[in-house]
């Protein structure tokens, strides 16, 4: 049946399927990720974690019902808007935080392109060779700071503002290291199309091994970009309460939380594509003979592992102080990425 619809309006329906699957995937993966976060952190800290919520009072399924209960609870909570808040901005802030997080996934190929009845199908939302390539998710990622900033500004709360300012300062300073480390990669590849990057890695090995320094900088900066510990400066229980989302309640807060997890997934997808060979299967160089589903599985496995690393790191490291963060951003990450770029450029012209 799917093939039948495909033959009617192939382009459009293929696009539709891709959009539904991709967005659905992101939306469906984010809530279980909260579960992974809660249970995983519990395991790391020798606790047990949430395990009480049960479907129909019976089925506990390792606490997965908490995800449902949380979602449901968000919908039934009173939706408060502070008296002096900027109502319009307050309303769109969660969307501003959520949509850029979601959009970044568009150019990431989740599997090998395949041919069917003479048409080539690409497993990324936007077909390759579109001129944006991997610059697009980076640019969109930069937009994410607006969600935080607008949320902070609109709630008219000093804690929020402090959190928002901190987050934006952090994002701006980490964007540099991020960009420069990726430029080194693009220079080596000779292009910034995701397919090009992946094919290059299929032939010559992962960039994780070829540019470990670049990977390190990119990875650390992605943590700052996603506002995760050890760089979670937008919030801070002991100093500025919940930071930029102090005033948000009900589903608005839920969306903010969801945005963080979607951000993690997209950041993981970016790292996988850039440094872990995307959908390529490890220990194999024969790119054209891989089954499409195997490549998708490979991509997903890497993605999920990285998501877990995000959780894992959060529950391992203490957070930095604000000045330490700036210090690391400007005095360590930025020079490191510059060195990485120069060394790689020199290596190419040698």
């Amino acid at each position, binding site marked *: 049946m799917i093939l039948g619809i495909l033959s009617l309006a192939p382009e459009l329906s293929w696009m539709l399927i891709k959009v539904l699957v991709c967005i659905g995937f992101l939306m469906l993966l984010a809530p279980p990720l909260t579960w992974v976060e809660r249970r*995983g952190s*519990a*395991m*790391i*800290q*020798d*606790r*047990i974690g949430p395990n009480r919520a049960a479907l129909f009072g019976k089925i506990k399924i390792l606490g997965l019902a908490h995800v449902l209960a949380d979602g449901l609870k968000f919908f039934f909570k009173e939706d408060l808007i502070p008296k002096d808040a900027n109502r319009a901005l307050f309303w769109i802030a969660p969307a501003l935080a959520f949509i850029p997080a979601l959009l970044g996934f568009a150019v990431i190929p989740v599997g090998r392109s395949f041919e069917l009845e003479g048409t080539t199908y690409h497993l990324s939302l936007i077909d390759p060779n579109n001129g944006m390539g991997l610059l697009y998710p980076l640019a969109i990622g930069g937009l994410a700071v607006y969600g935080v900033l607008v949320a902070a500004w609109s709630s008219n709360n000093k804690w929020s503002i402090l959190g928002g300012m901190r987050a934006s300062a952090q994002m701006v300073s980490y964007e540099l290291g991020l960009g420069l480390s990726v430029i080194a990669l693009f220079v080596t590849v000779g292009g910034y199309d995701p397919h090009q990057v992946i094919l290059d890695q299929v032939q010559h090995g992962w960039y994780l091994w070829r540019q470990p320094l670049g990977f*390190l900088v990119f990875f650390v900066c992605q943590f700052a970009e996603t506002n995760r510990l050890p760089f979670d400066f937008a919030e801070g229980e002991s100093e500025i309460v919940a930071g930029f989302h102090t005033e948000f309640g009900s589903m608005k807060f839920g969306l903010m939380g969801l945005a963080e997890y979607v951000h993690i997934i997209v950041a993981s997808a970016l790292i996988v594509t850039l440094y872990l060979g995307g959908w390529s299967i490890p220990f194999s160089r024969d790119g054209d003979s891989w089954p499409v589903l195997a490549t998708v599985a490979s991509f997903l496995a890497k993605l999920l592992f990285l998501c877990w690393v995000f959780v*894992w*790191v959060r*529950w*391992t*490291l203490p957070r930095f102080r604000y000045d330490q963060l700036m210090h690391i951003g400007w005095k360590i990450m930025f020079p490191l990425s510059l060195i990485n770029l120069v060394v790689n450029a020199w290596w190419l012209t040698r």
Partner: protein
Amino acid sequence: MAILVKKVQLSWWDRLYFPAVLKGMWVTFGHFIRQLLTPTSKRFTIQYPEMKKEMPEGYRGLHELKQFEDGSIKCVACFMCQEACPARCITIEAEEFSDLNFTQGYEEKRPKIFKIDMLRCIYCGMCEEACPKDAIWLRKDYELAAYDRLSLNYGKWDLMNTYAVTDGKPVQSEDNELPPSPPRNFVTM
């Protein structure tokens, strides 16, 4: 004079951070795996309603009024516990009785009303110390919850039956001669 705080000098290896980070991640990973592979019953967390902690010897929990084998109360209403109680939460009213069939029969005195306000009690165990007849004991039960204050004002019947189920004894039926004690309203799960 101000206290001089000595600044910790990190070695270059420490200042690389990443070895330390990797070490930390290894530690947390170890904890994760260990916790994952430990069966729930062996973990540190006591999952309360299903699992209960074994209270140590000498724990002072809810009181029990002891009985003889035939079920008659050991207490002779001597008021010692009432006097000893620092929280003043014991109320006793004595009655005379002479039923020689009972073990206690020769004593000819027993409480008509024996009430302990469990909300005022501080579980100090003074009543237990003071009792000449070993008739009142503080035992290991600590689950005390009710919907109103009155039902935590335990009467004689409550005190004699607090542990009946735990001990496997038959629950004492309510004596007709005694005024009815307020209903004991445990929240049972």
